[in-house]
């Protein structure tokens, strides 16, 4: 994995004309940043993440990933570097077994089957679910599906990880395991989440969104300990505070 960054420059986006979800936001990241994206429901966290991987291309402004502009013809190059975990695991998983789903990306990138097997097993070990290798997806619980979803992007060995509410449906032990996995990944991470305690444990930097704009961008501890700021924007202090 190499070290790369994201640059978002005066970006706006709307699903319907005249109703901007994202309003003229700008930020850039360092290659080792671990960024928590927080905000109340409907502020545009998921929308912003999708724009970074080109799932929403009708934005105004400029987004660059690893110095490559996010445009239709550059998407294959950009997506090779980014692992994206959907909020809903059922949207991420479409093969019959965990093994097949985790092997999907390495196979698409033309890796030999021996390497595919190695990556799948490594990804399963990393999330602590080697026993689910041949289990059928439809038989899995929500938490197991979430772990398999994370494994599907780990097998890509991405340079950037984007996660949309990764700790949903995870029991406390697996949530702790997820935090451990994220802390071991020392490249760029952007995590959208309502789990402020997890953000506190995994992110050095936090961006607070409200009404489609960046309200605050800075040190995680400073932002997540500002009770007035959080309550003003529909959030509360993390449980540990």
């Amino acid at each position, binding site marked *: 994995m190499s070290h790369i960054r994201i640059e978002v420059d005066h970006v706006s986006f709307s699903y319907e004309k005249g109703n901007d979800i994202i309003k003229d936001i700008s930020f850039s990241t360092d290659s080792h940043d671990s960024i928590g994206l927080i905000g109340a429901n409907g502020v545009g966290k998921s929308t912003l993440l999708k724009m970074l*991987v080109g*799932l929403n291309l009708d934005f105004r402004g400029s987004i660059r990933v690893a110095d490559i502009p996010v445009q239709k013809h550059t*998407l*294959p190059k950009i*997506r*090779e570097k*980014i692992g*994206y975990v*959907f909020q*809903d695991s*059922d*949207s*991420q*998983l*479409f*093969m*019959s*077994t965990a093994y*097949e789903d985790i*092997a*999907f*990306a390495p*196979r*698409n*990138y033309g890796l030999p*089957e021996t390497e*595919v097997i190695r990556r799948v097993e490594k990804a399963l070990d990393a999330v602590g679910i080697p026993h689910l290798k*041949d289990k*059928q997806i*439809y*038989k899995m619980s929500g938490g197991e599906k979430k772990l398999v979803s994370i494994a*599907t*992007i780990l097998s*890509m060995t991405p340079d950037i990880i984007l996660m949309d509410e990764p700790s949903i449906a995870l029991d406390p032990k697996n949530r702790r395991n997820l935090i451990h996995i994220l802390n071991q990944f020392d490249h760029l991470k952007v995590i959208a989440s309502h789990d402020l305690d997890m953000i506190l444990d995994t992110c050095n930097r936090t961006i607070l969104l409200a009404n489609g704009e960046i309200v605050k961008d800075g040190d995680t501890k400073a932002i997540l300990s500002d009770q007035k700021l959080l309550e003003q924007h529909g959030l509360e202090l993390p449980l540990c505070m």
Partner: protein
Amino acid sequence: MLVYVIYLNFLERKSNMSKINSAIYEIHHMDSLAARNQWVNRIHPLVKLIITVFYIAVVVSFSKYNIAGLAGMIIYPVVIFQLGDLSFKDSIRKLRIVLPLVCFLGIFNPFFDRQIVTNIGGLPITTGILSMLTLMTKGVFSVLASYLLIATTSIEKLCYAMRLLHIPAIIVTQVLLTYRYITVLLEEANRITQSYTLRAPNQKGVHFKVWGTLTGQLLLRSMDRAEKLYESMSLRGYAGEFYYGNKVPCKGKDYVYLFLWMGLLILLKYIPVITIAGNLFL
């Protein structure tokens, strides 16, 4: 047709599970059957596909009055049911909607073809009855052969076999994704109907006034889910071609299996095994 509709209603009332749950369960159950480690499941998918197509072609090639010759073709499904450790009763239950339709195909033959060929216990057997029975038997055997293929081979392996036969990638991908998206559609329908049922406890079924709304919602939500699935595939490098994993070549046992069955099926086509067996015992 009226009889068929009454039959479908009877099936619906008999079922304790909702129809949608039942359909989702049946699809997942077929996936489970195909994922087992039975001997026949481990045969190369291309070999099984070729044998199934060959079997159906041979069955269909029997002349319309040759019920005795056709009866010998039952050997293939009987053997595969045993080798695959599959339940015949289960297969009939799964095919309960298709089989009556198949049997319906020749139902009018006795009215048009009335030449008497023999009598059995005083009952005149006409050429129409013979052709009806032959047509029904061909249909049942073909459906059973298809069922056995799907019950012993996962959809991914089947698609891999189709690609080996150089069937265009776009067609094979359509088959795979249609199979996968059927459950997406059914799961969305299930969520909608469950939510409706829990909030309309005194109603039987869905009131006709909301059929349009719910159907529209189902379409929109299924399209949304399907789009998300496609996004997920694109984000993981999908570019139009599925790679079906471990490309295991055919082994010796696969070739033996293939040529044994093809040889036997050709033999059954030209040698009336059931007639000979009947003459031996009578």
